[in-house]
């Protein structure tokens, strides 16, 4: 087990290295001039040149990357071009807000998705099943921002049950989490349904029935744990998908998380922040899938980590 974790961590580091190289190379292609952006529109050519040298943008790209990597190894993500502070100090204070949003939406995803998926599978081909499946298709076909705006309009503007935006209290968390969570719930419900249908056909379920076990017992001990197995891997992969959705939903609700920071940085071509966020997200994705793989053997003891 420790050897397995170590190997996965090394793999994660290699992926981070790759992500940093690709992102760096992409940002280097930028047709706009970051030095001009920093110096401002009215700056003279000399001033822009001075800024360029200060930021090290005049060096050849491999030297720039080398410098970036060297600082990165020391835990330094660099300095924002436009906001006069370290990227670390900009990214990390915003992590809790996004993490909270993520926990909230994963909660809705799983509660709604797994419950409805299970119900649909157990009542297969009934009207209820068809209604649930139709709903899941609607949710997975909706752009995250549209769902956000719809919920915002109906529950905050029209009914007034929730605040229109803001951050800090529990009531602020509900609508943004639902906006992201309902989309995911559609996905999970579809997966859960086919997963449960698959398990229902297994011999051990028939055996359990033949032994005369109660329906509830079969459901809780035999069906659900086995059906959850493919789902766990999905949760790990979800984190990457989530970060994209967070940009949209945070924009709709003015949620002060990583998504907003990133979006702002992209608009201002603040390369160090974009790099930093990409690395943090790639790290989160790698850790998410590692965690999912580590949990899997607890649900299914047949799985051996190699």
């Amino acid at each position, binding site marked *: 087990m420790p050897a397995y974790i170590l190997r996965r961590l090394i793999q994660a580091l290699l992926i981070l290295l790759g992500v940093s190289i690709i992102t760096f190379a992409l940002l280097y292609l930028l047709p706009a001039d970051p030095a001009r952006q920093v110096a401002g529109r009215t700056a003279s050519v000399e001033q822009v040149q001075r800024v360029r040298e200060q930021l090290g943008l005049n060096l050849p790209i491999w030297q720039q990357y080398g410098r970036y990597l060297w600082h990165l190894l020391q835990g330094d993500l660099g300095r924002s071009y436009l906001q006069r502070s370290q990227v670390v100090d900009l990214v990390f204070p915003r992590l809790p807000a996004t993490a909270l949003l993520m926990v909230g939406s994963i909660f809705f995803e799983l509660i709604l998705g797994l419950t409805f998926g299970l119900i649909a599978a157990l009542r297969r081909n009934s009207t209820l099943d068809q209604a649930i499946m139709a709903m899941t298709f609607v949710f997975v076909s909706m752009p995250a921002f549209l769902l956000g705006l719809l919920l915002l309009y109906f529950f905050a503007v029209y009914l007034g049950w929730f605040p229109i935006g803001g951050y800090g209290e529990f009531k602020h968390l509900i609508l943004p989490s639902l906006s992201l969570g309902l989309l995911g719930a559609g996905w999970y419900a579809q997966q859960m349904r086919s997963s449960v249908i698959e398990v229902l056909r297994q011999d051990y379920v028939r055996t359990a029935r033949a032994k005369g076990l109660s329906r509830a017992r079969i459901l809780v001990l035999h069906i659900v744990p086995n059906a959850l197995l493919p789902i766990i891997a999905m949760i790990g992969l979800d984190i990457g998908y989530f970060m994209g959705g967070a940009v949209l939903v945070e924009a709709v609700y003015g949620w002060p998380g990583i998504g907003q920071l*990133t979006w702002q940085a992209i608009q201002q071509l603040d390369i160090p922040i974009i790099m930093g966020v990409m690395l943090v997200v790639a790290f989160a994705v790698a850790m998410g899938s590692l965690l999912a793989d580590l949990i899997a053997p607890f649900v299914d003891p047949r799985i051996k980590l190699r």
Partner: protein
Amino acid sequence: MYIIKELLKRKLALLGLLLIAVIVLAAIFAPWLAPYSPEDQLADGLTDIGEPLAPSSHFWLGTDLLGRDLLSRLIYGARASLIIGLLANGIAVAIGALIGVTAGFMRGWFGAALMRFTDLMMAFPSLLLAIVLAAIFRPSLWIVVIVISMVNWVQIARVLYTETTSLSEREYVTAERSIGASTFRILFRHILPHLIPTITCWATLGIATTVLLEAALSYLGVGVQPPTPSWGGMINENQSYFQSFPWLVFYPGIVIAVLALSFNLLGNALRDILDPTLRGRH
């Protein structure tokens, strides 16, 4: 023929096909169908105090903040969504197939390198990468197509890689090899035909993903640029006033969802029909 017969049996697939047909026809015949020009700021398109008009018999879906007819903009906007959906997804599937099949069939260091690169791309959150790319290049319809295809090929490459590796382990492939069949013959006669169902499903379901990605980019303002009407862009233009004029956001939003939904329904039906491992379960 079998596929068409099966599709016609499924109500949801038919609904998807019908909706796609309506949207495609609207896009093609936009100049004849749209009551107004999508870019004209109509003289009677705003109220006396300069507010957009609510839906009425004159403007069926109302007018936008600049006094343009919303229905006409929606009809023309179908063009951008469809062009990007079909083209960007087509390119993504082609890239994914090329990389996945090559990596699965060639093996060796080259195949391994291709797959490591694919894994690396999977670590990037696709929407985030697309936003960065679209913001880097000055966005236009064609840039959006390229950006989306550059981030969306990854998953299909992974799936086709797995299928190709398993196919090239089959006995009939070994048999072909042993009687001296050329690599090309094996690839085109014995491997690619088996991949067609998977590719068809992904090509259909992928359009839904692409349409949503395009809408997200346009919503953030890095997609198709005005004055070209695009559905996501219309939401972006109008969203700051959506509390007062909600229809300006909801109608474009609904058509985006309907287009994505119809391709999802069709693609899902195709997967049921084409994937033999799932057959008989529904």
